[in-house]
C-alpha cells in the first residue's frame, strides 16, 4: 500500500475491485469537464463509457492513464497504489498509473518511423527492460493472434486502418498491463473495418482482460460490457447492466441519447 492518506471513499468498494476511483474532477480553465466521477472496475470486467461528445468520457480514460492530471479525486489500484490527485505528489504518481494500464487510441498513434514489430517491442524492451529476444517472440505471438502474422516488418502506412488499430491493441497488450483502456477504438475506421477490431476486443474480454472502453458502438457494449456508464456534462447520469442502461434506461437523458444513436434520422 502506498503511504498516502486517502480520504475515506464515500461509496462501498467491491471486494474484487482492480481499480477504484472516487471524486475525480478536472477543469480546463473555467470549463469543468469532470464533476466528481466515481468508478469501480472489477478484475476481468468490461466497463464501457458512453455519452455525447464533450461529456468527459475520454477525459476519464486519459486521467486513468496519466495523460491528464485531474484536479482532485483518488484512484486506487487494488492493494498496490493510491493516488490522491489533490496532492502535489500526484504528478509523480501518474507514472504508477501508466505502469498498470495501457491505452489504445482513437487514431492509433502508432510510431510511423518504426515497423510493426518495433512498435510492439518498444515498451517492453526500452521501458520494461525485458530481454529483446523474448519480447520479439511475445510480439510475434500476439500479432499472430490478431491476424497480423507476416506484417512484422511493415511500416504503419502500409497497413489498413483496421490493421493499424490491431497493432495498437497488440502494442498495449505487450506491456502486460492490468487494465486496458480503449478510447473510441473504432471511431476513425471505415465502417467495413470496425468489425475486425471489435472482434479482437471481444476476444480479449472473453479471455478475462479487464478493460474500460469509450465507445459509440452500442451493439458492442450490449454484447461485451458488464457495466455501461452513461456520462453527460461531466457527470455520470446512469450506470448499470447494459440490458438496463441501453434497453430500458431510468433517466430521460440516457433514453434520448440511446434513441439518437439507434435512430440517427
Amino acid at each position, binding site marked *: 500500500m502506498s503511504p498516502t492518506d486517502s480520504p475515506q471513499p464515500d461509496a462501498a468498494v467491491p471486494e474484487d475491485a482492480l481499480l477504484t476511483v472516487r471524486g475525480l474532477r478536472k477543469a480546463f480553465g473555467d470549463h469543468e469537464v469532470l464533476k466528481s466521477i466515481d468508478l469501480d472496475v472489477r478484475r476481468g470486467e468490461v466497463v464501457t463509457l458512453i455519452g455525447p461528445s464533450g461529456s468527459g468520457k475520454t477525459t476519464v480514460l486519459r486521467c486513468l492513464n496519466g*495523460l491528464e492530471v485531474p484536479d482532485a479525486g483518488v484512484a486506487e489500484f487494488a492493494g498496490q497504489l493510491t493516488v490522491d490527485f489533490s496532492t502535489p505528489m500526484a504528478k509523480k504518481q501518474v507514472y504508477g498509473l501508466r505502469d498498470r494500464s495501457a491505452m489504445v487510441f482513437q487514431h492509433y498513434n502508432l510510431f*510511423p*518511423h518504426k515497423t510493426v514489430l518495433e512498435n510492439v517491442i*518498444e515498451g517492453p524492451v526500452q521501458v*520494461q527492460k525485458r530481454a529483446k529476444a523474448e519480447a520479439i517472440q511475445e510480439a510475434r505471438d500476439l500479432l499472430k493472434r490478431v491476424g497480423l502474422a507476416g506484417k512484422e516488418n511493415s*511500416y504503419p*502506412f502500409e497497413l489498413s486502418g483496421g490493421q493499424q488499430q490491431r497493432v495498437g491493441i497488440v502494442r498495449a497488450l505487450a506491456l502486460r498491463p492490468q487494465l486496458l483502456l480503449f478510447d473510441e477504438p473504432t471511431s476513425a475506421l471505415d465502417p467495413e473495418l470496425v468489425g475486425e477490431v471489435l472482434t479482437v476486443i471481444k476476444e480479449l474480454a472473453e479471455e478475462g482482460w479487464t478493460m474500460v472502453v469509450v465507445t459509440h458502438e452500442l451493439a458492442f457494449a450490449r454484447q461485451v460490457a458488464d457495466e455501461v456508464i452513461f456520462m453527460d456534462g461531466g457527470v455520470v447520469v446512469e450506470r448499470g447492466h447494459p440490458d438496463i442502461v441501453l434497453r430500458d434506461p431510468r433517466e430521460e437523458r440516457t433514453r434520448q441519447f440511446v434513441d439518437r444513436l439507434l435512430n440517427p434520422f
Partner: protein
Amino acid sequence: MTVNWALVWESLGPLLSGAIFGTIPLALASFGLGLILALLVALMRLSRNRLVSAIARTYISIIRGTPLLVQLFVIFYGLPSVGITISPWPSAIIAFSLNVGGYAAEVIRAAILSVPKGQWEAGHTIGMSRRQTLVRIILPQAARVSVPPLSNTFISLVKDTSLASLILVTELFRQAQQVAAFSQEFMLLYLEAAVIYWVICLVLAGGQSALEKRLDRYVAH
C-alpha cells in the same frame, strides 16, 4: 575578352586547397557545433520554464537581428579590447556556430512542434519518460521534417564562410583575392571562386536528396 586558361589552371591549386583546407572544414565544424547548440536552444525555447525560454528567445533574436559580419568582427576585432584574443580559425568557428545555432534552433523547434501530440501520448502510454519519448519517438520524426530547411542553412553557411576571409582565415575566397591581386585578373578569379562554391553546393543538394529519400522510407507516397 580572352580567357587566360593558363592562369585558371595555375590558380586552381591554391583555390582548391582553400576550399579543402579552409571552406569545407570550417563549414562542417561550424554546422556540427551549431546543430548541437540549435537542438539545445530549441529545447530551451520549448521549455515551460519562462526564464529558460526567454533566454533562448533572446539569443535567437540577437543572432537573427544582427549581421553575421558584425558578429564575426565583434568576436575577432572587438573582444581583444576587453582582453580576450582569439585567433582567426576559432573566431570563425565560434561566430558561425553561434549563427547556425540561432537559425537552426527555430527550424528544429518547428520540426518538433510538427510531430502530432498523439506521438507524445503514445510514448507516455507505453511508459516512456518525456526524455525517452523525445529521443526515441519525436526527434527521429522531427529530423525528417527538418532536413530541407536545415540543408538551406548548411548551404547558406558554406557561402557565408567567405566572410572569414575578412578575419584572415585562409579559405577559398581569400585565396582567390590573393591570386587576383597578384595577377590583376579580378573577373577571372572571382568567377572561378564562384564556380567552386557552386559545385560544393551542388554536392550538398545531392546529399540532401539522398538523405530525404532515406528518411522517407516510412512515409506513404
